[in-house]
């Protein structure tokens, strides 16, 4: 009886650890993006939730970020080149960058993609 109790107990711990391992090391796959302004993370957004964010810099620069239909992109920007806006809306791949405003949008890792060149 005592042996059975121990086996049950240890099996329970094992199952718990296994579950935790899977949870901790699989990570959240895709669907999230982190927004950095001047090197500091200012938001972590769920790409499944449509929204519009405005990020302002201390120097008076501004980027409007739109999340719609699982994709994120810069839809308005005060920078002169608008290279950030030319990236269009993305769900994964290379980070979206606005160099003049020091804005970076980084995607959470996905199973399909480790990074992107370009």
């Amino acid at each position, binding site marked *: 009886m005592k042996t059975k109790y121990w086996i049950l107990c240890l099996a329970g711990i094992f199952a718990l*650890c296994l579950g935790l391992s899977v949870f901790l090391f699989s990570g959240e796959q895709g669907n999230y993006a982190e927004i950095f302004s001047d090197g500091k993370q200012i938001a972590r957004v769920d790409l499944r939730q449509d929204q519009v964010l405005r990020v302002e810099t201390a120097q008076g620069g501004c980027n409007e970020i739109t999340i719609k239909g699982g*994709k994120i992109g810069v839809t308005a920007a005060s920078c002169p080149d608008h290279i950030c806006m*030319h990236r269009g809306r993305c769900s*994964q791949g290379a*980070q979206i960058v606005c160099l003049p405003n020091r804005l970076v949008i980084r995607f959470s890792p996905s199973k*399909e993609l480790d990074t992107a060149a*370009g």
Partner: protein
Amino acid sequence: MKRLFLLLITLPLLLWGCGEPNATQTIFAMDTVMTFQVWGTDAPQAVQRISHTISDLESCYNREGLARGAADPAVLQEALDLSRRTGGAFDPQLGSVTALWNFTAEDPKIPTAEQIRDALQEKTWDLGGALKGYAGQKCVGLLKEMQIDRAILNLGGNVQTYGQKKDGTPWQVGIQNPQGGDPVGILAVEGTASVVTSGDYQRFFEVDGVRYHHIIDPKTGYPARSGLRSVTVICRDGMTADCLSTALFVMGLEQGSAFWRDSLDFEAVFLTEDGKIYATQGASLSGCDYEVIRR
């Protein structure tokens, strides 16, 4: 019973312990954004050292550094060798021309034909088309020295992979879509390699609907018009990958394919202005339709 007990205790601990320490850092350097992801015991120290290496290289190889002779002569020689190899399609001495175009300025302007003609006569170093690739290569040496397990460095779109992925599968590297949106295709890259893209969408300005991009044809001094939107090169050597992506963009699809047939050290993916994708036969590309360039 004792064995069962040990098994039950150690198995979850082993599973728990398989997530190695890792570190990620993003920095602004070399007029771009760089992200380092490192896995291994000394990962936090490694990202710090990579960061320092990048800023050291930047100060030695920017205009001022090159002018005061801070650059390693062996690196300059390697750049000249690559220039010769590409028949001058990559030119590390176009500094006067690139300074005229000044693509990083707030309000860049089209230089006059006379200005370009004069600038083409001068031989001024500009390692913009080689430095990020060289930096990736240098970081690989550092990662090896620190016995890092694996890393993926994105140096402003220049990708440097290091080591094997934990599950043994190849690294999955997307190729950016020049028209914006998600990557056009995914390259499977084995082990330590450099993946570099040169594209007309990376740095440019437009005047009267004409795009003036940063990849200058050394023969004309104007942005290369070769019918391509981007070229991606996969190569074991970072600096070679960087220089060749620029050179192949300048050459265009036909001449670039011929150059690849004469070489054995790289693979390439060409994206044309009419939206077609061409990949050399050794490039493991997926997620898109493309034509294979054969030897």
